[in-house]
Structure formats: structure tokens, C-alpha cells
């Protein structure tokens, strides 16, 4: 797995500039315009992993993967590993971003920061848990074409739909309960990610390339 993870990072290096540009744009938009931009960070980690899939397709490395020892299993492991790494990077970015916002905006309490971090982790993991098996079953091209735009739009719709209930929960429940709820949410999505990993391996082994 280490070899393919290394390959994924080397491929990512080649598209690092646009990825960083997106992040900077989000940060600026979030600080200047609206704190809600924070939720779009979830998409940022999905965008990065999509970029790795696209790089593989563009540079025709899929057949190479099938030719190496346990290539497909190693490739899925590496892709889930990079997804989790991206979620960690994302959570750090969200933590920093939310922290700065809590200083800049008086109505944005610092106690919200860990809650927002946990929610973005949970939703990122959920996004990967749903999206990765679909990609391994149908390939990145079909997945991007058929479901990509809809899922991105859908994700935005969901995020803005849950925004009010989240604030309602924050204002109506004790912090202990909120933290426990968020922790459980992260745990549940981690379990879901594991199930998704098993499904992805089966789907990829069935697929020809």
C-alpha cells in the first residue's frame, strides 16, 4: 500500500497549485464574506481525492495497478488512506479557520469550533463512504459525469438544509450532549467508511480495469 500511497501523493504534487488555490479562495471567502463557507471545506477533501482518480485515468495507470502484486487491494487501501489523511488535513484547516472566525466575529463563539470540526469530519467521512464505492464500481469518468455534479449540488443543499437544525441543537442542548452526539456521529461514519472500504474492494476486483 505504501508504494501506491506514495504514487498518489506524487500525482497530487503535479496538481498541487490548483488545489491550494481553491483552499485559499475558500479561506478568503470565509473570512471576508460568510462563515458558512466552512461547510464547503468538506467538498475540498473530495475534490483532492477526485483529482488523484483523474490523474490515474489521465496517465493510464489503472492497468499498471492490476499488474502488480495484490494491486487492486493495495490501490483501494491507499485511496482510503489518502482520504483519511485528507480528512485530518481538512479538520486542521477547519479548526484554524473556525478559530480565526471566532476571534473576528463576536457572534461566533469559540465553543462552536470543536463542534464544527467534528461535524465536518463526520460529513467528509460520509462523503467518502458513499462516493468511493460508486467510483470503484463505475470508474471515475462515469461517476463524475453521472453523479458528480448532482452529488456536489446535493451536498450543498444538504449542508445548507442542516445548518439551521445544527444551530438549533447548539443553542438548545448542553455542550456535553452536543459533543457526545458529534462524537457518535464521527464514530458512526467511521464504521460506515469501513463497510464502504469492503464494498470498494469487492467492486474493484469485479471491474475489469
Amino acid at each position, binding site marked *: 500500500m505504501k*508504494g*501506491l500511497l*506514495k504514487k498518489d501523493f506524487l500525482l497530487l504534487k503535479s496538481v498541487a497549485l490548483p488545489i491550494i488555490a481553491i483552499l485559499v479562495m475558500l479561506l478568503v471567502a470565509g473570512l471576508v464574506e460568510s462563515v458558512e463557507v466552512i461547510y464547503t471545506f468538506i467538498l475540498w477533501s473530495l475534490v483532492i481525492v477526485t483529482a488523484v482518480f483523474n*490523474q490515474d485515468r489521465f496517465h493510464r495507470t489503472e492497468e*499498471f495497478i492490476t499488474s502488480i502484486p495484490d494491486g487492486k487491494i493495495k490501490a483501494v487501501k491507499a485511496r482510503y488512506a489518502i482520504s483519511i489523511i485528507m480528512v485530518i488535513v481538512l479538520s486542521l484547516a477547519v479548526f484554524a479557520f473556525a478559530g480565526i472566525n471566532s476571534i473576528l466575529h463576536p457572534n461566533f463563539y469559540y465553543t462552536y469550533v470543536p463542534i464544527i470540526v467534528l461535524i465536518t469530519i463526520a460529513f467528509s467521512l460520509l462523503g467518502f463512504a458513499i462516493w468511493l464505492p460508486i467510483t470503484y464500481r463505475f470508474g471515475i469518468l462515469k461517476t463524475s459525469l453521472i453523479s458528480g455534479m448532482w452529488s456536489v449540488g446535493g451536498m450543498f443543499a444538504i449542508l445548507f438544509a442542516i445548518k439551521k437544525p445544527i444551530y438549533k441543537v447548539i443553542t438548545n442542548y448542553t455542550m456535553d450532549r452536543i459533543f457526545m452526539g458529534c462524537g457518535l456521529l464521527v464514530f458512526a461514519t467511521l464504521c460506515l467508511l469501513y463497510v464502504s472500504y469492503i464494498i470498494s474492494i469487492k467492486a474493484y476486483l469485479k471491474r475489469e480495469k
Partner: protein
Amino acid sequence: MNSIIEVKGLAKKYKNGFQFGKVDLSIKSGRIVGILGENGAGKTTLLKCILNILHRDSGTVNILGKSLEEFDSEIKENIGLVMDDVFLPEILNPKEIDSIMGNLYQNWDSSEYYNYLNRFNIPLDKKIMTLSTGMLKKFQIAAALSHHPKILILDEPTNGLDPIVKNEVLDIFTDFIKEKGNTILLSSNITSELEKISDDIIILDKGNIVLEGEKDKIIDSYGIVTLNSKAFDKVDKKDYLSYVVDDEGYHLLIANKSNFKKKYKNSKIKDIDLEELMILMVKGVK
């Protein structure tokens, strides 16, 4: 001699109608086996089906006595692969590939890899996508050999190489086979190349094996007889495999020169080379 690759009843059907008939194949250890066939005959498909890069509709493949489905990792550790469309990540450079491959193959030998790169004059910091066709092929060969495989599977390995490098590469293959138990399975359209290095040959036509066996025995036994139409009419159909007609007359492919000579005493039988054999097997009228 043990079979190192055993294929039984391999079948594959494409949506476009191309069908791989039930292929049975037994490749012995320590041999160079050449697969011949015109473009689209199924050479690459056969190699990919053997390696499970393409899924088989039916049939079994055992490599080194083990099923590829069950022992994928162990088997692929022992296979070096050079294929036109099985790319190493081409945006990376040979140095980066070394660090990747070192983590993918247990037996990856960096010093061997750098020796080959040096021998082939391949720059270490140049992206693979910027290498010329010949350089790319040499690079693929270097990568395929650097984890000390027991089996080399090569699809058109000398395509795009100049004659000097081609000979150098063929010498490397000959050196590789000298090590006990090593085997090469290679497909090529270049019959002279296969004639030079292969021990056994397989001729494919439209997804079916039409001829297989030891190259020297085939070359010794098979021949061509050229006849005019009157003489052709007198030859029993059972005594030839196929024929083609041109301005010189009927060219008959015969499987056993001595038997033919006994039966048709005045006939002049010409020795055959692999190119003529392939043309007559594939394009000849049966």
C-alpha cells in the same frame, strides 16, 4: 519439464463480437515462447487474460503451480511485465518510480534498476511521458527485470527500438533465460525476432490457437510446395494444411515434408520460415 503456466479452457467474449475460443496452453519452464499472429488476433488479450488484467469468461490459469485468483500477490511477485498499454505513472520520473516500486515488490533491487537505467542511458530526472518510444520501452524492460522475476511476459517488447538496442534487448532476454527456471512469454509481429530467440511458438488467429509446438521441430517438419493448377488438383486435401494462390501458382503448406515427399516423389519442397508459416496458417485457404 514442469509447466510454469497452465491455461485450461480460457474463453473471453467482447461486446464487439471478438471471441476467444477455449484456449488450452501449457508453457514449460526454461523456455522462450513466442506468440505470433496478425494484428487483432488476440495476442495481447491472451496475455492480459493470463494475468487477470482482463477478466476471463471461463477457464483456469495456474502460474508456478498456483491459481492466480488465490495467489495473486505471490505469483505477480515473480512476473516481469512489458506491455504497450500497461503504463507506469508517466508523469513521474525513473527516480520516483524506484521509490514506488521498492514498496510494491518485495524483491525490488534498486541497484539492479539503476544499472539497467545506466546501461540504457535513461535519464533519472526526466518524466516518463517525455521519453521517446524506444527509451520508454527500454525503461519498461528495466523496471520489469529489476524485481528478479521468474517469468517475463512481453507484448511487442522491441517495438520502436533501433536495430542496435533491439539486439541488446534480445541479448538481455537470452541472459535472463540462462538462469535456471526462468521463462519468457512474448508476443510479436516481427517473425525474424521470434525465429532468432524463441524455443516454442504459438500462432493465434481470431482468438484461436492454430499452431503450437517447438519452433525447431516445426521448421524442420513443415514446408512449402509450389504447384501449378493441374498438379494441385492431383494432391489429396489431407496432405496439406492450407494454400495460397499467386502468379507463381499454388503454395501449399505441408506439415510433414518427408511423408509428402514419399507420396509425391517429384515434388520440390521448400523449407519454411516463421513468416511464411504464419501467413499460410492465417491467410491460407484450408
